């Protein structure tokens, strides 16, 4: 299984990103880590290029929404219906209600959305999700 990961937008929070890479590798995934400050277009390009199964985006600094609202339209340019789109971190500025934020990002085209959820909890759900699809 191939995963493309990184931190979206003008966001330099790198600590979780490093830990996600380690944890994904421990779980047996092949990881392409684009690091911080990665734009949505770069993510999509990498997914297409590597034929990844999962795109795992982090956003910590609160500005995810501004950077991800165009996902649907980008997706439509490529055949990416088998790719799992996943996002996690701090998905809004200030204190957010997860009950509002999750549906919003699902609307933008994400399959799995984790607002302030520990990375390993999120990766457990990803593995379950992959298992169920098989």
């Amino acid at each position: 299984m191939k995963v493309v990961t990184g931190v979206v937008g003008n966001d330099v929070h790198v600590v979780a990103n490093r830990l996600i890479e380690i944890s994904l590798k421990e779980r047996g995934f092949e990881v392409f880590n684009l690091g911080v400050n990665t734009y949505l277009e770069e993510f999509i390009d990498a997914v297409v290029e590597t034929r990844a199964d999962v795109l795992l985006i982090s956003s910590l600094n609160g500005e995810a929404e501004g950077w991800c609202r165009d996902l649907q339209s980008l997706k439509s340019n490529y055949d990416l219906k088998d790719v799992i789109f996943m996002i996690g971190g701090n998905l809004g500025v200030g204190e957010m209600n997860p009950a509002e934020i999750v549906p919003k990002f699902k609307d933008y085209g994400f399959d799995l959305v984790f607002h302030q959820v520990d990375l390993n909890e999120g990766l457990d759900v990803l593995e379950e999700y992959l298992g169920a699809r098989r």
Partner: protein
Amino acid sequence: MNLLAIERDAIVGNEFIENFDFAEVEEFIKNASANLFISHKFKNSNEILVQPRGGFPTYDKVFELYEEFEKVKVDVLPLTIDSNTRLNDYESARKMLKLSEESEMDMLNGYPLINHGYRTTRRMITHFDTPVSLRHGTPDARLLVEVALASGIFEIEGGPISYLLPYSKNFPLDKAFLYWKYVEKVCAKYSKLNLPINRESFGPLSATLQPPAIVLVIQILEMLLSLEEGVKSFSVSFSQTGSMNQDIVSSNVIKKLSRFYADKFGHDDATINLVYHQWMGAFPRDKNFSESLINTSTVIASIVGADKIITKTRDEAFGIPTKEANALTVANTKYTLKILKGIPKISDEEEEENLTNEVNEILEAVFNDKADTLWRKIFNSIKKGYIDIPFSPHIINNNEVITIRDKNFNIRILEKGKLPISKKSFDYEKSKIKLDKDRTVVDQIIDGIGIML
């Protein structure tokens, strides 16, 4: 017209800003109230100054935030800049500011100063008549600093290393040095018109397992780069390490060495201050625990004898704090500083000797580099991995240094990479580390990141 003047003209000619009137700005600074200068406050106060963090996209929300801070008698106001502006992406900042103004929802994590401009912002700063500190994290802060100074913001945080290695992925390091040289020059120039503009380095760096030796080296180097250009008031800083003793040791050594190197380089007329950051790493999800953590940081700031403390809030783990949460920390911090009396003088000779040696060893290697100017020596040293911080997102960072906590939560160097420290110093570090054989090193590093959770 000299080179700097030409460059300044070009910089302020940016399409995102309104027409920039240098003559008017000079006049304004010449006559600015002493209360706007933190250098003045440092000189005339025996207390630790309290400065929160904070910034919102819109003018009105920042104004309300300042009103809240004013009520609790804040000493220094912050102006935190949003992350688009930090990366000179003024167009994204403009769009998101507009969205924020329309929707009442904050689409930016700070104040887009360029888009607001200095005429507007100055109205706010002079209204509150309290020193404001510019917090950004911008490698190319030339325009930002011009606008800030023109607005009446007379403390500028950052530096070519401390605002690059933790804050950028691929901004060219050599350019950062040159752009910060510009900042120093402008600060030095304006310092002659009235009281000194204060510059402050950002000691927390990536805020995660940063070894004190490297933090201190970067503080001292940025101080020298700044004093070299004529700045007369400079603050070195560091953030809570997680071990009270390591904080005390760091502060004793940095006070001693920053003064020593400033004098050695001929800047004995410069004032050096010490700033302590409340815990900068990952915060607990329990807000009461966050408050306990914050108060504990305050007690340590008192013990280390800082000149200023920069605060966090009970909301830290959740997002940009509300103005109320932010003001609450200021009030609580000031209360704790007030009741804390009878602080003992503490030192730990063995640890202080080791840290002093490490800092001197690295600095010596930097100064011995063959390049002609200090900034080029530092540039080369970073490229060679002589200066290397854990958890930097920047491509130039050597990423070989690995740190881990010992059983007293001191940050120790496990892998020294290319750090030019002596065998004796490295042996000392290693002698303090007791790895748990039954668990992976990575897991033990992760424990060290999460000590406050």
